[in-house]
């Protein structure tokens, strides 16, 4: 019998701890337990056998940390360690004479993935792929003690793409019911189901009594079998030794209760012994397993949270889409991901539940850019994303690196579309937007669109995609070209939602195209659509009237208890506070961001862009900068003004772009935080100020090796480089970078800053200028380029 024949059919017993058993036998802190498969083969073999004799149906190989990062200096390769460990475990099974399964055990890599840490997602994938390939003799893959959904995704993809073995995933939750990187249990369940895990579970961190509640929550949401491997209680340190004190009897009483809740597997983690497992097996094997029931949720997730569709309507922010947005187009062409990130933050500040990300522009490398954009956006906001592209390669690339279960935008009724999109939905998981059009175009009638919706739903089912993972878009057409257009859209939407029982989505604003006062039509249509069963509206969340319509609808439909959301969020047209005549200059000096943009817009009606910069913005920045230098303005104030100036610049840039006049750059500067150093606040502040003062800044980021800095200098013909380092240990890399630049490009000047630096120290390492603060950098750059 294969493992899958048994999984979810009866209660399976997992083995107990390996690590703590080895520690009892003399494994030292810092020693790699995985190497004991060579040095202490008998002990490992006997431990496996003891668990098998105790009644374990699944034993896990001693390979928890057997990845190339951890084995780097061990003298062994991942392949050697994994093969040896699997063979020892298989030997144990064959010697025991029991029918049992060997699970290839894979734990966390030991490094945090980007953006939390430094390990790229792709590198994590490779580390796991190596283990998976070497473990092909195992019966299943057990990814366990995982605390980060993103790392889990790397491991699951590596498992699925490099083997056909069943994949089980088990996670370690904190006492507050969250993973290390923030996901709650529900979010973890939806994300792992989407990724195609065969079973999911809980292990480590807590004892069985504490884990019971979490198991219950997991079972409430999961359509997959759930297994639970608790510690023998919480760790206690006695005389420097970590102990787990829950007895085998107490432990098995609790695991029995967990099995009665509906767990498909139970076993143990840290501190458990063969005796814990023996008593667990005795009690749990008698319980008749009730197979898990399929749940019906339309859920999308981010790295930390879930948005459910089908209850209260949700808002999908539409602004990361270049159609009709000049600044965004320019930002995409320049690869300016910070612009996209800022756009994302603006929309979540306005309570968007989900954000659409579309970077499609002619002539752009969309797979590359969409991947970068998704990575960037998910590093700054915590809401799920809707990945939006008609380029199937771009779609797949972005789905791969997305951290969670996204909305995929979109599939339609054409055979070709379904054939290319559905396999991606199945593989990476997601809720997919289904456009009701096909080879014959967009049907004019509601019946026609419903027919296409039905076709898509049926075809999805053939790919194993449930209608829970579909949201149908019945397509908003412009009313000015056909008065019945809105009605057709809404009639078909109503039918899809209430008769077919499938969630719905609409892009709203197209309805008013060509009409005056578009927002007025948009809000009315949006409200009508919500009333007819719209699950998600793709709208501009920065539009107060749209959001007010939304909050009003929710309040009137009983989705907003005590009108709390309505009262907190609805904006009246801002009451004009009497601030006297605000000029652009004073708005920047005072740090009034929205006013600064407003004033700039107004000034542009009468003045030339360059005049505004020279007579308003620069003098304002100078005044604030001098105040900072004198000690009357402080860093946060300086930066508020900097952001205001940036807001004004953004408005002016648009005009300049239209007029075709090229803005003169004061000079180009490369800046970076040096190799090994991850402190980038100082560098980031310097960047903002330099840009404000009209310099073009090429920001290479943090932890940048000397060679990359040199490369950027050569590539862009750079004459001035700014370097930052915070630690005494990383200043050596600053010195190394300066030496390399002096050797390869002697004409290049370097300016340096950072907490541990002094003027003398800077001179010692060969820097041309030491800046004690960000303004100092601006002044030096001004002098530098003036003298050129």
């Amino acid at each position, binding site marked *: 019998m294969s493992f899958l024949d048994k999984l979810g059919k009866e209660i399976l017993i997992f083995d107990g701890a390996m690590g703590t058993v080895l520690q009892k036998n003399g494994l030292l802190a810092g020693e790699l337990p995985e190497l004991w498969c060579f040095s202490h083969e008998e002990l490992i073999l006997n431990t496996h056998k003891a668990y098998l004799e105790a009644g374990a149906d699944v034993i896990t190989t001693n390979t928890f940390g057997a990845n190339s990062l951890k084995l780097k200096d061990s003298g062994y390769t991942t392949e050697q360690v994994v093969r040896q460990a699997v063979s020892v475990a298989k030997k144990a099974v064959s010697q025991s004479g029991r029918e049992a399964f060997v699970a290839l055990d894979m734990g966390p890599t030991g490094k945090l993935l980007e953006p*939390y840490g430094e390990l790229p997602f792709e590198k994590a994938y490779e580390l796991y792929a190596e283990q998976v390939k070497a473990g092909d003799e195992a019966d299943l893959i057990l990814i366990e003690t995982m605390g980060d959904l993103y790392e889990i995704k790397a491991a699951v993809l590596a498992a699925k793409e490099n083997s056909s073995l069943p994949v089980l995933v088990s996670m370690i939750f904190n006492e507050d019911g969250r993973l*290390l990187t923030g996901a709650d249990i529900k979010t973890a369940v939806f994300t792992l189901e989407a990724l195609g895990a065969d079973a999911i579970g809980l292990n480590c961190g807590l004892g069985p009594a504490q884990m019971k509640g979490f198991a219950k929550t997991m079972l409430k949401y999961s359509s997959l079998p759930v297994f639970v491997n608790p510690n023998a209680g919480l760790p206690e340190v006695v005389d420097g030794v970590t102990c787990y004190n829950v007895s085998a009897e107490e432990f098995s009483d609790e695991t029995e209760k967990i099995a009665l809740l509906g767990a498909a597997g139970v076993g143990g983690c840290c501190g458990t012994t063969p005796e814990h497992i023996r008593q667990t097996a005795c009690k749990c094997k008698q319980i008749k397993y009730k197979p898990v029931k399929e749940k019906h949720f339309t859920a999308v997730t981010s790295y930390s949270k879930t948005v459910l569709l089908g209850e209260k309507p949700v808002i999908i922010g539409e602004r990361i889409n270049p159609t009709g947005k000049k600044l965004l187009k320019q930002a995409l062409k320049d690869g300016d991901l910070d612009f996209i990130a800022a756009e994302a933050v603006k929309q979540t500040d306005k309570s968007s539940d989900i954000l659409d990300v579309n970077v499609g522009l002619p002539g752009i490398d969309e797979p590359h850019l969409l991947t970068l954009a998704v990575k960037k956006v998910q590093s700054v906001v915590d809401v799920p994303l809707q990945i939006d592209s008609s380029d199937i390669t771009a779609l797949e690339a972005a789905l791969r690196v997305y951290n969670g279960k996204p909305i995929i935008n979109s599939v339609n009724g054409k055979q070709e579309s379904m054939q290319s999109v559905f396999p991606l939905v199945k593989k990476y998981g997601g809720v997919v937007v289904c456009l009701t059009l096909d080879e014959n175009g967009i049907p004019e009638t509601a019946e026609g669109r419903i027919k296409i919706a039905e076709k898509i739903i049926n075809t999805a089912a053939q790919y194993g995609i449930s209608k829970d993972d579909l949201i149908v878009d019945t397509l908003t057409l412009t009313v000015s070209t056909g008065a019945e257009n809105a009605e057709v859209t809404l009639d078909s939407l109503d039918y899809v939602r209430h008769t077919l029982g499938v969630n719905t989505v609409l892009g709203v604003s197209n309805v008013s195209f060509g009409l005056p006062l578009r927002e007025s039509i948009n809000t009315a249509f949006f409200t009508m659509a919500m009333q007819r069963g719209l699950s998600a509206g793709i709208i501009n969340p920065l539009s107060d009237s749209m959001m007010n319509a939304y909050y009003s609808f929710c309040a009137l439909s009983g989705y907003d208890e005590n009108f709390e959301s309505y009262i907190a969020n609805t904006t009246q047209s801002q009451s004009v506070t009497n601030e006297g005549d605000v000029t652009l200059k004073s708005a920047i000096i005072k740090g009034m961001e929205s006013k600064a943009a407003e004033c700039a817009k107004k000034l542009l009606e009468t003045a030339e862009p360059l005049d505004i910069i020279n007579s308003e913005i620069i003098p304002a920045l100078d005044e604030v900068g001098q105040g900072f230098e004198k000690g009357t303005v402080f860093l946060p104030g300086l930066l508020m003004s900097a952001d205001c100036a940036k807001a004004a610049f953004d408005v002016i840039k648009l005009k300049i772009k239209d007029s075709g006049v090229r803005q003169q750059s004061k000079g180009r500067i490369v800046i970076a935080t040096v190799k090994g150093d991850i402190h980038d606040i100082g560098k980031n502040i310097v960047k903002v100020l330099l840009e404000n003062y009209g310099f073009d800044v090429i920001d290479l980021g943090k932890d940048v090796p000397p060679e990359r800095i040199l490369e950027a200098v050569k590539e862009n013909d750079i004459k001035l480089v700014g370097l930052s380092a915070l630690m005494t240990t990383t200043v050596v890399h600053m010195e190394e970078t300066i030496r390399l630049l002096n050797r390869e490009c002697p004409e290049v000047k370097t300016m340096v800053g950072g907490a541990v630096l002094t003027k003398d120290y800077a001179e010692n390492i060969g820097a041309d200028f030491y800046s004690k603060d960000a303004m100092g950098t601006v002044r030096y750059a001004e002098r530098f380029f003036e003298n050129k």
Partner: protein
Amino acid sequence: MELRQSEILRYAGFRGHTPDEAMLKKIEQLKEEILSSVTPRSIFKDVTFETFGDESFFISGVAFKSRKLTSQLKTAKRLLLFAATLGPESDRLLRKYSVSDRSKYVLTQAILTEMIESYSNEICDGLAEKYKNEGLYLMPRFSAGYADLELTAQKSFFELLDISKRIGVTLNDECLMTPSKSVTAFIGLGTKPFCTKNGCSACDKTDCEFRRE
């Protein structure tokens, strides 16, 4: 958790001045956002050690080299290994404000810095209370990178305390920690209350912008 306003203002670069009302309000809003979204965690382990000569000591066979700490430990009975972090969400907030609002970026940085400090103090105060019953007193926190204890000591320290697995802090090749708002420290347990200069007054860098008077 109590966040000391004076420390936040010092870290944010107000140089002893009181910000205006709008700025103070901004700080309050940020504190609220941070306190509701950041989850601090900590672990400690009570271990025995042996000193070796004047500049090394051992814990479970693992050596650490520092003349200064070894000399402090001469009067200590045992040692606490301590680690605390504000978790990955604190870094996300910094990333968020670094692209969207630079003054909030600096203020968030300041609040988080005070938060990890204050949180560590709170946990250590609790430990001090607990050990007082045993007649033991906590010495000041001594971290890798202080004085002559090399930053590379972090590697062994992390293994001894199993920090990555238990609270999710990891080291890069240069031994810097992620999440950035994390702290590790040796804390000696002495039989007498420990009294020595610490904090800014113990530091030799007297021209530091952030030095307390």
